[in-house]
């Protein structure tokens, strides 16, 4: 069993999401232009939660979509095929500020794939990136706009974001291989 450390508990995760939502609202004055798209597995639920908080802040519904990036990955012939989840974007992204929501930012390759995938749905005015954990080790020139917590990690460690919707509990843990 790997050694695990809790980085965020449920209360801390809730505070981080609330803060991210406020930062999104601060950065984007016109809430009507903002849409959220979450990247499964994890980001889709986080996007829904952020959308709920933002809808209350702005007093208007913020559209939330799901963007699966597996068909746009750059490592498809280097590994077993990833699990593909349905993409659901029930709105036009053209001219909108799209906030991509993911649980963990690591190499940046998922974000690159997500930006590629978004292109197939239209031409957003801006794309911003919100993540719960930034664990470093970028392989591409990509930076998050909104970060719940920066966590310095070693390459071999794993960051697991567990959500009530998937795992019955809200927490982020760092696993160190023994």
């Amino acid at each position, binding site marked *: 069993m790997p050694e695990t450390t809790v980085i965020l508990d449920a209360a801390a995760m809730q505070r981080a999401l609330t803060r991210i939502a406020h930062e999104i609202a601060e950065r984007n004055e016109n809430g009507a232009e903002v849409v959220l798209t979450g990247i499964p597995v994890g980001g889709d639920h986080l996007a829904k939660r952020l959308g709920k908080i933002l809808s209350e802040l702005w007093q208007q519904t913020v559209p939330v979509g799901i963007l699966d990036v597996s*068909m746009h990955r750059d490592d*498809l012939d280097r590994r077993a095929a*990833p699990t593909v989840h349905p993409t659901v974007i029930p709105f036009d992204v053209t001219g909108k500020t799209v906030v991509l929501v993911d649980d*963990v930012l690591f190499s940046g390759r998922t974000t690159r794939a997500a930006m590629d995938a978004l292109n197939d749905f239209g031409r957003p005015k801006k794309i911003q990136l919100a993540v719960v954990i930034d664990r470093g080790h970028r392989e591409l020139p990509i930076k998050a706009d909104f970060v719940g917590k920066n966590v310095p990690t070693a390459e071999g460690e794993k960051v697991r974001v567990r959500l009530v919707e998937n795992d019955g509990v809200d927490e982020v843990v760092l696993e160190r291989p023994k």
Partner: protein
Amino acid sequence: MTWTRKHLLDIESLTPDEIVTVLDTARAFKAVGERAIKKVPALRGKTVVNLFVEPSTRTRISFELAEQRLSADVINFSAEASSFKKGETLKDTARNLEALNADFIVIRHSASGAPHFLARVLNASVINAGDGAHEHPTQALLDVFTIREHKGKIAGLNITILGDILYSRVARSNIWALRKLGATVTLCGPATLVPKTFEQMGCRVTHDVDEAIRDADIINLLRIQHERQRKTMFPSINEYIQLFGLNKARLAKAKPDALVMHPGPINRSVEIDSDIADSGRSLILEQVTNGLAVRMAVLFLVNGGKGPPEVTGN
């Protein structure tokens, strides 16, 4: 569930989990077909050869479009316009195609086992698009996908396959897939085309249509394959229509929510009455749409099958 297969040769060797993985993956690819831009870059830079040694229109077109929507480069190779006419063997033809760095070979062949043979002698991924009377795995997968979309499940359903079973690779692949996923399969047709030996595959065999369709949730009709029958297996087409053709009166005796499928091409007024083929109870055109999604999913999965198991991590 992680898919680790490099080839799709048959349904017989797949596990139920692997079949479900294809179906779940196909659901996402079906949605791609509903977008304004129906193309994804998953197979960019890969080359697919459609090696159709036996004629086919709809399966070949379906594979070709699936490959293009995955951004692969596509070569179509048909027996009529090829060096098979000059006496080249299948192995040599395939090796030549591989020398062009083909990554995938989609093969349709009149000989059972031809795809398995290619998988042994080539480095490319091989996908069976129908081999003799043996299997037609993507057809079974799209049939099961279509059934699951309408009925929400496969386990516990009563599926009746009606028509030419003996010569049908579609029937064999369907039987494997449906049995693995827990459906009850009933086979029906003339005794010469539906021998009792199919009971060994876990099916019920009957030669009475009314009984075969009475409890069916799905009635899957198969074409009478004149080209595979060495001699006539039943006295006349008219007798077949009378005894086994699906018409309104017969369908009225089935469950009200029973749906009708057919892999095509349909012989109107032989296996199926025109009004049924065009009615809301027919899933025939949906099968065509779903075939595209299932073939995209299969190509996507076998592409990954060449790599190591899925790397988990962020």
